[in-house]
């Protein structure tokens, strides 16, 4: 084994085993109740409002790609895009999905197309509703801002990895009078979303959004399994606090192994 990763490997195993155990329990029929997330509840209301007003629903899966540590945020956004697209297809609203990373484009197109098919509204599907704008961060932001303001979007859903463009896009949505639901695990961008958006999914809520929205008991089992991982983190924190208070660095040393 490589040096310095033993503790990480053991921790990963503990977290994975905890989550898989709960997934298996859910498969065997155990049901879990997960608290409701206000932002998710608001998505249907936002799509309904856009339908009544005959205006656009904007969705962005963020500006992260499908590789590296931020990929999970893009996948989380794409999981929720399926739900949003189904609602849009069901209500007959207009959807616009803005894309910054080229490799996300075919995935988003397929998700939206399948959602329209699932709702039996494939004739209403417009390939133009998923659009690649630019791979340049601020060119993408400028394009999204322009589209939101020109089309007077009634809803703007921003779920994924965002950086400096988060506030620009959110402010554009605010000034267009859109209901805004945003979520990111990028800690530095969450305050901007809190300031400018109506609902914000913070950190783990973003990753859980697709699972909770689906209501699938197996997916909900995996969310419940996260509690084991949190318990493990809490135990480590308490041991670390006690050790540091007693002047011992054994946990820091252990983590470095």
């Amino acid at each position, binding site marked *: 084994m490589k040096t310095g990763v033993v503790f990480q490997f053991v921790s990963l195993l503990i977290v994975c085993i905890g989550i898989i155990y709960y997934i298996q329990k859910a498969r065997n029929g155990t049901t879990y109740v997960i608290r409701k997330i206000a932002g998710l509840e608001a998505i249907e209301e936002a799509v309904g409002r856009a339908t009544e007003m005959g205006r656009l629903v904007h969705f962005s899966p963020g500006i992260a790609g*499908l590789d590296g540590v931020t990929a999970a945020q893009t996948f989380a956004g794409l999981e929720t895009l399926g739900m949003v697209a189904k609602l849009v297809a069901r209500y007959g609203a207009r959807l616009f999905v803005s894309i910054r990373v080229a490799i996300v484009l075919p995935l988003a197109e397929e998700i939206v197309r399948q959602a329209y098919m699932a709702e039996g509204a494939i004739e209403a599907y417009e390939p133009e509703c998923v659009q690649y704008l630019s791979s340049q961060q601020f060119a993408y932001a400028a394009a999204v801002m322009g589209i939101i303001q020109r089309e007077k979007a009634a809803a703007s859903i921003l779920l994924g990895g965002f950086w400096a463009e988060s506030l620009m896009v959110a402010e554009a949505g605010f000034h267009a009078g859109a209901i805004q639901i945003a979520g990111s695990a990028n800690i530095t961008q969450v305050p901007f979303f809190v300031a400018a958006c109506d609902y914000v999914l913070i950190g783990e809520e973003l990753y859980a959004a697709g*699972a909770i929205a689906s209501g699938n008991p197996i997916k909900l089992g995996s969310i419940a399994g996260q509690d084991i991982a949190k318990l493990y983190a809490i135990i480590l924190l308490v041991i670390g606090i006690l050790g540091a208070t007693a002047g011992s660095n054994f946990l820091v040393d252990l983590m470095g192994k």
Partner: protein
Amino acid sequence: MKSQGLMIAITFVFALIIIIDAFFAIDFISAASTEIQNWGTIIASLALALAAVNLIRIHSRRIRLRRGEWYNSVALLTVMFVQTAIGLVNRSTGEVYNFGFNNIMTPLGATMYALLAFWIASAAYRAFTARSIDSAILLVAATVVMLGNAPIGESIWSAFPSIKTWIMDVPNMAAQRGIMIGGGIGAIALGLRILMGIERGHLGGSDE
């Protein structure tokens, strides 16, 4: 649905190789991991062609139908084709090719970034309104932090920098770490759902 099963199997095997490579020093796994990541880069580059097709299709249709502000689409396609032609002739390191980037893209990007200050002011004006106890706490904390950061704060009261440091290092850091731990665990759970084929939304598919 068979193709979905194949994609899930490929995802699982490739992810497993990359995970094993992160923890164990096994030569053939390391070589396979590098190869997989190289293929990822190649596929991502090919996706740019798809993106270009998407842009050309949408904007040429807009020009053909004379849809609102279609002249912007003309400008976009013109710049796109001209810059591509220059890149093919002059290469991406050429002086002519970089002229456009250095004199148009870079200043425009910097301008957008600079505009962020106004968006922050606009959002802060709304956020820092004491409409509830929560927002009042936010207002007070933010005011103290700003005064702690600005030299004038220390001139008013010498304790401002210390209070600011405490706010940033204790309650702020505790909240940030809580969110980061939760986010990390959430990302692992999402990864497991994808690898186990439970989450198939990104494949355009239904549930397990």
